[in-house]
């Protein structure tokens, strides 16, 4: 597979997890592309304006990338922390609208500031990796790390509290969960993840402009989670990977591809209302996967070797 496409898919999966985190405690936040844009803008500014971040021109230093990811993630998280307390008082569709407004505000600000390059954006962002496979490898490690953290989170107090709030916020409050704080934590973690993903994306895309964080992107990232399923961390990852790859894989169909893509997004929720991956389906797969693992190790004969 083309490493460039793989990198895009991995970024899609990271953004899907960023939408998933607030959704895990029942909060429909569409702010992910806004935080993604902030991370990217931080990366673009730092690496084009500050020589020590820019490196030699051919490749910029890896520590600079890591520092940018920290800064970009932190800035997004700080903004989430600042507005979260207010915004998260809204519920359901109202929260969705407020977060869309946030994305639009950030987009218009980026569009009108001179130092972010206005409508043209920022070009010639230096590359920490010489090849697309370099990016893909690095992002794969990051995605694996984030997945592991999400899986751990589901076992932890915070993860259980998030699930409890999603199921019944009032009952959760009555057993002593500070629901406002838990929702804020999920929102901030989501922003942190989107911010540092933005840093990676800005370097990979080589240019960055206001269009990156748009309403379209909000809907696309939400589609990742709706398609993949919002009950486990694996759902958004699959949704992000598949729905990012699909338009590219469908190129041979020509103009039909957008229609097919639309159909897939439409049929996903119709055929799988809970998303592709649900806890039940995962459990159903459990023995099968375990059996496959054992078979690969040659301990038990496979069903078709009987």
């Amino acid at each position: 597979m083309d490493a460039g496409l793989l990198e895009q898919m991995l970024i899609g999966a990271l953004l899907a997890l960023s939408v998933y985190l607030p959704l895990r405690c029942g909060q429909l936040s569409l702010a992910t592309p806004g935080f993604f844009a902030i991370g990217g803008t931080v990366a673009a500014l730092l690496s084009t304006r500050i020589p020590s971040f820019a490196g030699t021109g051919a490749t910029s230093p890896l520590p600079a990338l890591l520092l940018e990811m920290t800064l970009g993630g932190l800035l997004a998280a700080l903004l989430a922390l600042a507005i979260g307390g207010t915004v998260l008082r809204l519920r359901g569709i109202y929260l969705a609208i407020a977060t869309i407004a946030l994305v639009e505000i950030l987009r218009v600000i980026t569009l009108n500031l001179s130092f972010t390059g206005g409508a043209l954006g920022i070009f010639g962002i230096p590359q920490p990796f010489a090849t697309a496979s370099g990016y893909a490898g690095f992002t794969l490690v990051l995605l694996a790390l984030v997945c592991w953290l999400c899986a751990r989170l589901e076992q932890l107090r915070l993860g259980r509290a998030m699930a409890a709030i999603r199921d019944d916020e009032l009952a959760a409050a009555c057993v002593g969960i500070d629901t406002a704080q838990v929702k804020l934590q999920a929102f901030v973690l989501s922003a942190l993840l989107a911010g540092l993903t933005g840093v990676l994306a800005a370097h990979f895309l080589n240019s960055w402009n206001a269009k990156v964080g748009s309403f379209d992107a909000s809907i696309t990232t939400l589609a990742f989670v709706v398609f993949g399923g919002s009950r486990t961390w694996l759902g958004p990852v699959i949704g992000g990977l598949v729905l990012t790859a699909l338009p590219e894989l469908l190129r041979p169909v020509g103009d039909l591809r957008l229609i097919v893509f639309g159909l897939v997004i439409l049929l996903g929720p119709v055929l799988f209302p809970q998303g592709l991956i649900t806890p039940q389906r995962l459990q159903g797969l459990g023995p099968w996967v375990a059996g496959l693992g054992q078979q690969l190790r040659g301990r038990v004969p496979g069903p078709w070797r009987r």
Partner: protein
Amino acid sequence: MSTVPLLEAVPLREAVPLLQVEGLSCRFGGLLALNNVSLAVRQGEIFGLIGPNGAGKTTLFNVISALTPPSAGRVLWRGALIPASRPDQLSRLGLARTFQNLRLFDSLSVRDNVLVGLHRFAASPLAAGLLGSATVRRRQRELEQRALELLALVGLEDQAQLPASGLPYGERRRLELARALATEPQLLLLDEPAAGMNPAEKDDLCGLIRTIRNRFELTVMIIEHHVPLMMRLCDRLAVLNFGERIALGSPAAVRQDPRVIEAYLGSSR
């Protein structure tokens, strides 16, 4: 002024009621759901709240547990104004409740429902938790053990791994009770815990409530429509009708009260 009695001279449970409700009113538009209700719940007692449908019993629970703001009046906890205005703060103070229309966390397992109730005792730094440090893991095992003990108490230990949504009705009620107990309350509010149970199950529940009251040194406030059960179970009863407290006292006294008889059976005139 020289003979002010020392607090220690009086048994504490006599001196300060655990919970006092003073002049509580609650108005929803044109409906006065609670009208100047006052009562005090003593430490360690089982306090019953009865009354016809729509009398304001659940509204009183909702005001006590900070889900509904009162229009007038106040609630005192151990003789002082409650320094909390949110349900989660009240939970930390020692108040737990169950709901008339069962509110479980349906996507979680039976055990995890109780573990959510143990939320307050599971605090650990996020980083240590994510990395699964030895201390965190030991604590986690302790809490899981505690959850299983509570489930055993209500007879659900065998269902621990099932999803809560799959439990039959009576077991869901008991799970909600276990979850409330997990928060280690001092005052437990039970809103129609016997609803939909048959007489045998109601007797079992009666025994269970007494057991947990004694074992956890709880004070229990209970709403229930089944009057004979309440007469047997409760130390004292308050009767609400159209938002007003029309009687308060021992089951025997309440049974004889003409206003109670009128509320339940109608006036003889």
